[in-house]
């Protein structure tokens, strides 16, 4: 990837975020790579604790002590003043830097998991949205208020003229999340990061919020980084998907490709452990063998090798798999696809044939299930 295609908005390269704790250095994000393209939705999935939220926060330098971004790049390709393209490395800015503050909310906005806790309960809705507008735009209070009402209407809040003067504790969870979304959209960001925005909501509200986000993203041509546990949600809204395991992205690619032909053994295991609609009730879901290692004491080499059915002794425990680019923009971190010296027999053009252990029927079955799930 020497030349950047025009539609790349944000590139996360080798991002590392550590927490210094009494028991040692926790490498919560340990060399994560992501590519976000304009107007597209990237879903980040992975088990609890694998570093999805910390990655998202690291992008905006919002990691709290004792955590800090210790390495890697977060390249934002934006249209600078006058329309000329410019690239900023957000990872190189300090958390209190003026330049990162100008990115927050304006180029990249964020919606959090807990709408209950992410709004101040003692400030009026209009005050909190208006403030977000006025940080980045020179407008009067009256104008900010007018825009707030308009935004509230746009995110589907009934009687926005009334709600603008309400306090968040007077609203339901779904309404609060709509308020959060209105706030995030207030400066028309190019990228919206949504960290499990529907987890705290009931099922019906979840579906509404999801529809709203998909709608807004579509109509504004905004890119979205969407963190979720829910493969159903991924199937519904994602263009691309990134699978995280223990602080790094083990596989990223277009959603159809990843779902129908997962390359990384962890992605395969993860997809197999997802319950399927229409599957016999009593059938046991295959769980992934072993458990996630403690991020403070990571194994050498590939972090997944202890739980991997295809681990290759002598290779996987010595070499940290680098990202390997395959056809159709897929990127995998697994030595099955090469990456250790000598690159040898790996054939990036068609690596699937190397994946012998995969029973022939499995991909076909997975494809069927995927189709069923998407309904």
């Amino acid at each position, binding site marked *: 990837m020497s030349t950047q295609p025009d539609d790349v908005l944000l590139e996360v390269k080798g991002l590392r975020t550590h927490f210094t704790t009494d028991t040692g250095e926790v490498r919560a994000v340990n060399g994560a790579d992501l590519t976000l393209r304009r107007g597209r939705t990237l879903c980040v999935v992975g088990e609890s604790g694998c570093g999805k939220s910390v990655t998202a*926060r690291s992008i*905006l330098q*919002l990691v*709290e002590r004792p955590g800090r971004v210790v390495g890697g790049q977060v390249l934002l390709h934006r249209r600078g003043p006058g329309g000329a393209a410019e690239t900023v490395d957000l990872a190189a800015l300090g958390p*209190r830097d003026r330049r990162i*503050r*100008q*990115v*927050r*909310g*304006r180029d990249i*906005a*964020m919606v*959090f*998991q*807990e709408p209950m*806790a*992410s*709004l*101040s*309960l*003692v*400030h009026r809705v209009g005050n909190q949205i208006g*403030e*977000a507008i006025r*940080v*980045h735009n020179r407008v009067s209070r009256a104008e900010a208020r007018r825009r707030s009402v308009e935004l509230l209407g746009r995110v589907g809040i009934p009687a926005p003229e009334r709600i603008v003067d309400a*306090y968040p*504790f*007077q609203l339901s969870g779904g309404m609060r999340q709509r308020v*959060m979304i209105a*706030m995030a959209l207030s400066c028309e960001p190019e990228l919206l990061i949504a960290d499990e925005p529907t987890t705290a909501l009931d099922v019906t509200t979840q579906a509404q919020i999801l529809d709203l986000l998909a709608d807004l993203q579509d109509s504004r041509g905004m890119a979205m980084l969407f963190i979720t546990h829910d493969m159903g949600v991924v199937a519904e809204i994602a263009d691309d998907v990134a699978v995280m395991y223990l602080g790094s992205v083990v596989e990223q690619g277009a959603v159809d490709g990843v779902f129908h032909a997962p390359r990384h053994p962890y992605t395969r295991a993860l997809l197999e452990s997802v319950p399927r609609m229409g599957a016999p009730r009593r059938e046991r879901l295959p769980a992934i063998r072993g458990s996630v290692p403690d991020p403070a004491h990571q194994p050498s080499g590939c972090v997944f090798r202890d739980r991997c059915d295809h681990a290759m002794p002598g290779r996987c425990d010595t070499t940290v798999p680098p990202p390997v680019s395959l056809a159709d923009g897929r990127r995998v971190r697994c030595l099955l696809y090469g990456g250790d010296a000598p690159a040898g027999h790996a054939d990036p053009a068609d690596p699937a044939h190397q994946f012998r252990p995969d029973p022939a029927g499995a991909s076909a079955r997975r494809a069927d299930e995927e189709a069923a799930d998407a309904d």
Partner: protein
Amino acid sequence: MRALVIRRLLYMVPTLFAISLVAFLVIQLPPGNYLATYIAELSARGASVERAQILALEERYGLNEPLHVQYLRWIGGILLNGDFGMSFAYQRPVADLIWDRIGLTVALALATMLVSWVIAFPIGVYSAVRQHSVGDYAATFVGFLGLATPNFMLALVFVWVSYRFFGESAGGIVSPEFADSAWNLGRVLDVVSNLWAPVLIIGAAGTAVLIRVLRANLLDELRKPYVTAARAKGLPEWRVILKYPVRMAISPFISTIGWILPTLVGGEVMVSIVLSLDTTGPLLLEALQSQDMYLAGSFILVLGALTLVGTLLSDLLLAWWDPRIRHAQTEEASA
């Protein structure tokens, strides 16, 4: 909100009545009365007291009447004429004796409160935001010292230092040269210049408590998601902190309005004695010891009423400060 205020004002009436009753009865509780104490004192000095004289005195002070009559006469006088009765010991109307002292006590309370706020706010915020910094540890250490040192000790140290090193005998609120003058600018400035030491001494412990509470509350609040969400909007750090978590953490400051007066009256007696301040504490103590009942009762009644006003003010301010309280209370009121 107005309904809330009216409701709270109405509630004050029975409470005040109860306070007056308790104030009056508490003074009657110890055996004997002022006269008995007075006679005992006279006989101890070797003076003989004749029975006729005792009866005359009892008659004059109304001490031979039943308790409820005494109470009704006292409270009636207050309500109808603002007459708080006579002080036995001083042979003067109680009203002449108490207002100056209560005024001074309230002034001291207000000054102490404001000064603790002004000191505690920046230190508390700094300690929380820069947790584990040298400044935080220093503030914590000094805070514990302030908490652990009894304030009469501070007063003694202050008196000693000012005598030893400045050759002045510290004490008193009004300097001798202004003792008899009317209130004018000079006298006000004089009082202010004499007030700072007692204010600091009396406020030391309270300030330390406020710093601890603000720091602990703010540390809790700083970890909450709404702070990160505010940062994610692109606000400058100081604005994030002052607008959101500090706002949530600072309610204890408002609560001080409610408890500063009673703590001060109870706590400053020793300091006032050491620094010879003419506040309520020393005179109230004296009146209780000699069973000078109208004097003691009136003190307690007025201080009780002022405390009620303080509590009301702090509750109303809290409701104004935190809309959640306001809404809960107005809902309750309309229900």
